[in-house]
């Protein structure tokens, strides 16, 4: 008997939850009338403001509880109809899957912004095959299983034609099975470790040979002889450094000139090269001391794949130890213009970065792009977009390029279906983007220019070296093994098979 009200609540909650998860309305179509079901419950719940209740009271006025929940459920129905009415043939739905909250939001919201900008730009010029792009923006919330769930929601419920999204490798790994299962198409825009070529993902990102290897080439040109590998402990730094170790060995750099330490398996094969620190690590004193020792002979550089915030304590310690870009330069692969909105650029002046785009590129295409983007930012009314101190950076431009490459591929294929579009992309489509011409390749990567830049005090980079039209190659482990030490090579050949 006393359970009855509880059961009503269960029914109410299940009902609410069902309505909630069936909701598919994109934010653009969302109206002010939509009331989150939970908040309704709370509002009604706040009125009595009672805490302790004798049991008898429930039976005294049983009509009260059913009356309220019923109202709540009814109020929840209209939005479902709104959502259903939104899908007519005028538009093409495009998914945007980035973290707008959580730890990755600081990086990923910029990509959301540039994507919305690209959609508006395309829509202003007549859309894609005459259809306007209707963005469906969802929040992955830096929560990887939620990325997978949202990807599934975008593909199954919203029936989007293409998704632009993901930043971290782990988020990509989590959504990959979903895209393969449902035959979706994902454009992935951020430098990554390679060793992957999903038939349903198009990697506009920099492969290792479009960032790390050109950077090392440049360092070798500068006469560097010793390389210290330092990174955060996750798959991108580890894979990159393993590739770099092989590459350095193949260039005749002896193993003892590669710093950071090695892990070996029981058979003595190297499984990992470099020094790794966990996310959020703050104490770099010992590591910097080790680097100083390693760098004693001169001509040493640091290959830095540290992620995000951990760069701050590292560079502070580095400066405190008296090292400068002249004595022991650092080349970083995870710090772009956008990161300098949160990092102190002055500590990094003179250090090197390597990307396929810099905001400071002095080309008419880039200047036009930056100007248009800034104008769009000033005028946009989308909630949550930051308007102050904005910059452009490589992942943003690669996202932007992805939208245009997709548009061109759709127009070439004459359809929005995944496979024909992918077919066109594999055949090679070029786009003159802000960072120079990019061309799609058969292996789902892009041929693009690679730039090496020197950090300036204002958080920009001065381009000091350009590698034209570098072919993106995802599978590099083992490919340089020939000239190196036998033992290091043997493992990697196995790995590549």
């Amino acid at each position, binding site marked *: 008997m006393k359970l009855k009200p509880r059961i009503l609540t269960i029914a109410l*909650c299940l009902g609410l939850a069902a309505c909630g998860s069936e909701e598919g309305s994109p934010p653009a179509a969302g109206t002010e009338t939509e009331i989150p079901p939970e908040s309704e419950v*709370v509002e009604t719940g706040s009125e009595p403001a009672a805490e302790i209740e004798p049991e008898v009271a429930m039976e005294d006025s049983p009509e009260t509880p059913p009356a309220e929940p019923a109202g709540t459920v009814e109020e929840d129905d209209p939005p479902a109809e709104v959502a259903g009415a939104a899908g007519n043939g005028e538009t093409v739905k495009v998914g945007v899957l980035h973290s707008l909250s959580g730890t990755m939001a600081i990086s990923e919201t910029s990509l959301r912004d540039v994507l919305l900008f690209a959609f508006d730009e395309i829509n202003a010029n007549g859309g894609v095959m005459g259809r306007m792009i209707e963005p469906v923006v969802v929040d992955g919330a830096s929560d990887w299983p939620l990325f997978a769930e949202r990807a599934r929601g975008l593909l199954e419920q919203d029936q989007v034609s293409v998704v632009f999204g993901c930043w971290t*490798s782990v988020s990509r790994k989590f959504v990959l099975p979903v895209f393969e299962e449902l035959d979706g198409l994902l454009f992935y825009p951020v430098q990554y470790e390679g060793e992957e070529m999903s038939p349903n993902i198009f990697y506009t990102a920099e492969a290792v040979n479009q960032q790390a290897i050109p950077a090392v080439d440049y360092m070798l040109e500068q006469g560097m002889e010793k390389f210290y590998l330092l990174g955060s*402990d996750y798959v991108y730094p580890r894979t990159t450094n393993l590739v770099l170790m092989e590459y350095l060995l193949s260039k005749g750099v002896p193993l003892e000139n590669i710093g950071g330490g090695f892990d070996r398996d029981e058979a003595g094969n190297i499984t990992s090269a470099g020094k790794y620190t966990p996310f959020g690590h703050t104490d770099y004193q010992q590591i910097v001391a080790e680097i100083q020792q390693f760098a004693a002979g001169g001509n040493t550089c640091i290959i830095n794949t540290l992620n995000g915030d951990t760069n701050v304590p590292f560079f502070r310690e580095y400066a405190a130890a008296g090292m400068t870009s002249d004595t022991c330069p650092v080349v970083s692969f995870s710090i772009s213009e956008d990161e300098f909105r949160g990092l102190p650029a002055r500590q990094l002046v003179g250090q090197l970065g390597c990307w396929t785009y810099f905001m400071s590129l002095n080309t008419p295409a880039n200047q036009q792009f930056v100007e248009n983007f800034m104008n769009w930012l000033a005028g946009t009314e989308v909630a949550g977009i930051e308007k102050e101190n904005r910059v452009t950076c490589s992942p943003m431009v690669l996202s932007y390029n992805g939208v245009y490459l997709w548009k061109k591929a759709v127009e070439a294929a004459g359809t929005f279906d995944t496979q024909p579009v992918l077919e066109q992309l594999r055949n090679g489509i070029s786009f003159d983007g802000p960072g120079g011409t990019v061309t799609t390749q058969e292996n789902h990567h892009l041929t693009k220019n690679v730039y090496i830049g020197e950090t300036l005090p204002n958080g920009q980079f001065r381009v000091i070296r350009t590698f034209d039209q570098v072919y993106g190659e995802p599978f590099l482990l083992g490919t340089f093994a020939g000239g190196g030490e036998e033992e290091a090579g043997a493992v990697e050949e196995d790995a590549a098979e």
Partner: protein
Amino acid sequence: MKEKTFSRTHLLILGLLSILLIVVLPVANAHGYISNFQLNTWGKYLCYAMLAISVDLLWGYTGLLSLGQAMFFTLGGYMFGMHLMLMIGRLGSYQSDLPDFMVFSGLTTLPSFWQPFYSFSFSMLMVVLLPALVALAFGFLAFRARIKGVYFSILTQALTYSAALLFFRNELMMGGDNGFTGFRRLFGAEIRSPEVQRWLFVATGIALVATYVFCRWLTRSKFGLIQQAVRDIEARVLFSGYSAAAFKLFVFVLSAVIASIGGALYVAQVGSINPNAMTPDKSLEAVVWCAVGGRGTLVGPIIGAVSVNAAKSWATQAYPDLWLIMLGAIFVLVVLFMPRGLVGLPAQFAWAGRRINAFIQERRGRRPNSDDDGNDGGDDDSGGPGTSRQPPDPPTEASAMSDPVPADPPGDPANPHARGQTEPPLTPAAQPQPRRTSADPDPSTP
């Protein structure tokens, strides 16, 4: 005097809901009335509900606020995940017998501790055993040292954090940051196929119902009463000759196993697991589900887990920019105005209804001689809760606050007598507890 574990209505409703979960929803899915996506998402919520029950068993019933339950959940996920990783076989992107992450970490042979996970039953055994052992070791040390209250919460939080750091290390050969993903096969069948997913949903439904029934039986048994007595007046339980530490240890291990089973089912349905799922904020989330649903009840955590996660799923899609604010506001409001969570709502409505009735009667009958603010302050939120909290049930409240030991039995509370004699006083002390758990400040107040 002794309440039956299941009343007739309760059995009926439980039966109906179980049939809905285990039969109706999957059948509806098989016939296309519910999309695979919906069913899959709901399967995930049910796994979370198991995690929430495990939190509640500790927090709501035993007064131990564990902030480490997500670790047990994730451990269960990893144990089953290891089996699923091995079942990928040569279908991975390297066509190697080893899982992909091992290949690009340069391994050529499977680490020996992975070897037994080829067996499904071994992996299931580990789902139960490993979290149980971890909980046993940790709980033994913690409870023997009489660590309780916030110190216990902090320790469990530290435990899950250190476990997350450990699993983030690639040297552990558990996939590091990327964790496990890309599962292909279970029992030789395509794991993402609707049929397998449907069966996994059924399994989750059964596990949840079984957990619920078991926990309800447990909390209504004599064991449950002692458990609640430990929550309310641990010293008295000790003086009565019970080993409180042993009871707490048992509940801790039990809830670890429940969380772990939930985690194993979660991994199979969500298709991925990484150490992020062990970070302390995930455990905190589970506590929030519990609080929203209503702690100290068993349906509360289920409702809380399902509704909060459904709201999250919906809001991250419909209001990607505002959902955090919305959910945060809901949590704050729930804590402020719904101390017993969603399951406490009907009682609150009933109370409000009664007060309004009384007020109207009073108005009608005679001149309102007094301005007892509890009445017309009912609809203004600001002044409401603080002032009107007291009136509804003065005797219970007063006796609970001023003197934890009810005055009815003549026996001296501090008198450690034999069991037979101390049981009667324990029962009345514990019996009213479920209804006023949230007013009970000691386990939660930081």
